[in-house]
């Protein structure tokens, strides 16, 4: 099992550009999550999904969108990148309310 994979590992965006952060898991987990991590702030939940076709907002959803067309994939979309979106993004998955397993992260720099 590869677990939770994320691509890319690192990306630089210009203000106003858009991009999609990819996340995939091969553990057949029904729940998937996107977090952002900023220095000294812990992890904040952006969006989550309890199954294919079902998504919901977390604590900090503004500026982001998600979709969940399959159990395995949960991409995060940034439509108009802003400097405030400079962060490290982590995807996670779990089987119901059990332990969440995290990917290695995507480091995003918006200039």
């Amino acid at each position, binding site marked *: 099992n590869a677990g*939770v994979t994320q691509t890319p590992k690192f990306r630089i965006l210009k203000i106003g550009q858009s991009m999609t952060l990819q996340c995939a898991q091969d553990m057949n987990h029904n729940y998937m999550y996107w977090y952002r991590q900023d220095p000294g702030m*812990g*992890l904040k*939940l952006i969006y989550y999904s309890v199954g294919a076709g079902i998504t*919901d907002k977390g604590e900090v959803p503004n500026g982001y969108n998600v979709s969940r067309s399959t159990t395995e994939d949960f991409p995060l979309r940034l439509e108009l990148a802003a400097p405030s979106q400079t962060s490290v993004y982590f995807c996670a998955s779990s089987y119901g309310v059990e*332990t969440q397993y*995290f990917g290695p992260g995507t480091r995003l720099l918006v200039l």
Partner: protein
Amino acid sequence: AQSVTQPDIHITVSEGASLELRCNYSYGATPYLFWYVQSPGQGLQLLLKYFSGDTLVQGIKGFEAEFKRSQSSFNLRKPSVHWSDAAEYFCAVGETYGGSQGNLIFGKGTKLSVKP
């Protein structure tokens, strides 16, 4: 509102010394409790978790944590720290009811440095 507090931003201990990292939470019911560790540039790895039952839980790498309901705490301990334990440690509460069931609320983390 639900929250997790890790009072210590940065702790330095000598190799071989004991360690205790503090975690306090605010939650309206009995939560699920987790400790994760993050090495520099890496993702988060689960150290241990508490869902129910014995309030003293054992984890990987020789770590343990004790759930104290009366103090709303879930402190992480290790009797003898190794240099490889240097990392950032996150306490998290898992929501157990409502529409956000399963979501994690993280503390801001405690960075552990280990001196030789």
